[in-house]
């Protein structure tokens, strides 16, 4: 009989692999302690709907390769598993493929001994979701969104399902040395390792929760530094690896609420982590221990979160500076004039035109409490969206250039009331919007996540 492990140590090098390069000093300090797993999340919905819609990464390939290389070399040297979730920022199928290719390339470059790679995919086919909806499944909305309608589904370009611990655990059960996951819950990557090794759910999930953003649970504030989490059958301890960072009661407790609407509960496919009763205790200079967490299995079956992005149109950006005080005082009329000129040209055709007025409320928009303009100059960022690039360019160009020609009764500067960095507009990434932030009930937590196994031998896929 295999003796049960008393402790398990997981290294996390980066809160979003590839988004900014992993810092190497603290990584190697951590790797020298020979952790049991190397785990890292590589994606986020933070980056907006465009990358998912266009199926692209926002992280440069070289940074992804750099970060994967560190983890792969350290993990293979020790012969311990390495697991990545939400490959390539979005966790779509093409991003999983990209990461598999990088792993192959690195195996070849470093002549690594054969190892087993298990990947899983998170994209959900629109036709499949349509079929489920037609059979009566309700795709409930999160955060006050209504249930998914056929119309919103049809407006969607691409959908990913958010994996919980299940496909990671399946991959480990298959004997994976390297796991490359599609879109997944950040914390699930770490929790799956701990669950696979037989640790209690409450500690496994808390371990994931605290490790997912790497050094953001330590102080002082530094990103992309390594931390190590240790789980036992009684508690979770997290330790900063950077020489100048410490995991303190304040930093660890503070991290529990980071990027979450609620500091007490975190929902996963299959249950909820309850942090209401958490107790935090400094155990040495760089480490804090946490006890008192609970895990509540969902009573009503497993629901998987879905993210979807839908195309709105092509987009251009114009940049306009205004210094004339009279125009600044009457900025709404100036913008009104430019809007009227766009409408005159494109009345009845679909377009969107936005003015971000920096110097007034360009950052906060309607949430800005400062209502009067206190600046002597303004910058307008003009955002035009339309079905075709030609039309989007023209919408944005009229919307920008007509600021120059604004007709105000008492303006002194009759040779133009706008300053341009360039006399033109800039192509921008197409406009997308989040169409799905919903949950889908499933019978089997693996059913949305097809698994693929392979042996990487001399960088090639073998049997």
């Amino acid at each position, binding site marked *: 009989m295999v003796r049960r492990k008393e402790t398990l140590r997981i290294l996390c090098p980066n809160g979003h692999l590839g988004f900014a390069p992993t810092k190497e000093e603290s990584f190697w300090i951590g790797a020298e302690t020979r952790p049991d797993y190397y785990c890292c999340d590589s994606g986020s919905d933070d*980056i907006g709907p465009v990358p998912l819609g266009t199926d692209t990464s926002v992280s440069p390939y070289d940074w992804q390769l750099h970060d994967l290389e560190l983890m792969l070399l350290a993990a293979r040297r020790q012969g311990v598993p390495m697991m990545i979730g939400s490959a390539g920022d979005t966790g779509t199928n093409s991003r999983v493929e990209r990461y598999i290719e990088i792993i192959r390339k690195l195996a070849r470059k470093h002549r690594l001994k054969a190892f087993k790679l298990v990947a899983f995919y998170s994209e959900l086919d629109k036709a499949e979701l349509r079929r489920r909806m037609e059979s009566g499944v309700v795709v409930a909305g999160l955060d*006050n969104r209504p249930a998914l309608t056929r119309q919103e589904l049809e407006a969607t370009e691409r959908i990913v399902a958010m994996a919980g611990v299940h496909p990671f655990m399946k991959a480990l059960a298959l004997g994976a040395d390297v796991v490359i996951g599609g879109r997944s819950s950040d914390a699930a990557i770490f929790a799956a390792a701990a669950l696979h090794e037989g640790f209690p759910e409450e500690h496994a999930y808390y371990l994931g929760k605290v490790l997912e953003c790497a050094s953001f649970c330590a102080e002082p504030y530094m990103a992309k530094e390594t931390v190590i989490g240790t789980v036992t059958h009684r508690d979770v301890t997290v330790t900063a690896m950077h020489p100048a960072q410490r995991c303190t009661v304040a930093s660890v407790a503070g991290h529990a609420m980071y*990027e979450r609407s609620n500091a007490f509960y975190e929902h996963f496919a299959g249950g909820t982590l309850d942090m209401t009763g958490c107790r935090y205790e400094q155990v040495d200079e760089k480490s804090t221990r946490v006890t008192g967490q609970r895990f509540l299995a969902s009573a009503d079956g497993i629901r998987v979160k879905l993210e979807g992005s839908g195309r709105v149109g092509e*987009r251009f950006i114009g940049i306009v500076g205004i210094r004339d005080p009279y125009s600044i005082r009457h900025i709404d009329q100036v913008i009104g004039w430019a809007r009227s000129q766009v409408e005159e040209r494109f009345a009845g055709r679909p377009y969107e035109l936005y003015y971000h007025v920096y110097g007034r409320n360009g950052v*906060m928009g309607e*949430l800005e409490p400062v209502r009067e303009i206190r600046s002597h100059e303004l910058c307008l960022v003009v955002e035009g969206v339309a079905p075709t690039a030609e039309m989007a360019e023209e919408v944005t160009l009229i919307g920008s250039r007509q600021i120059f020609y604004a007709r105000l009764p008492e303006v002194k500067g009759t040779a133009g009331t706008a300053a341009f960095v360039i006399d033109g507009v800039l192509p921008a990434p197409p406009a997308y919007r989040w169409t799905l932030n919903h949950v889908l009930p499933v019978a089997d937590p693996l059913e949305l996540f097809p698994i693929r196994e392979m042996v990487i031998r001399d960088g090639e896929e073998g049997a």
Partner: protein
Amino acid sequence: MRTVKLVDLAKTIRSKNAGTDKITFDIIFREKENYERVKQSGVLTRARVAELFHIPEERISDFHEFDPALAIKFTLYRSRPSGSPGESDIFGCQQYPPLLDLEVPVE
């Protein structure tokens, strides 16, 4: 009554996306007495936050005090999802500054 600005009492004041549809705000204190002082002052409540940002209270999805971290936390629904056309703060990380100048009574 003497007042002190929130920025001078708190260690961290930040905002950040909480998923695609919400922005969450954290006000974290180093000293317990400052945390308790702000908690008891009534300066940070659902009603005061709604007033500050000119939004109806229904836009506030969560509001709570989190003793283990000496923190006050609240979350707002966005007017449109992050990164939509017309939206100007994709990470939601520049929505906290109005909190800095809140005057907290200290007598």
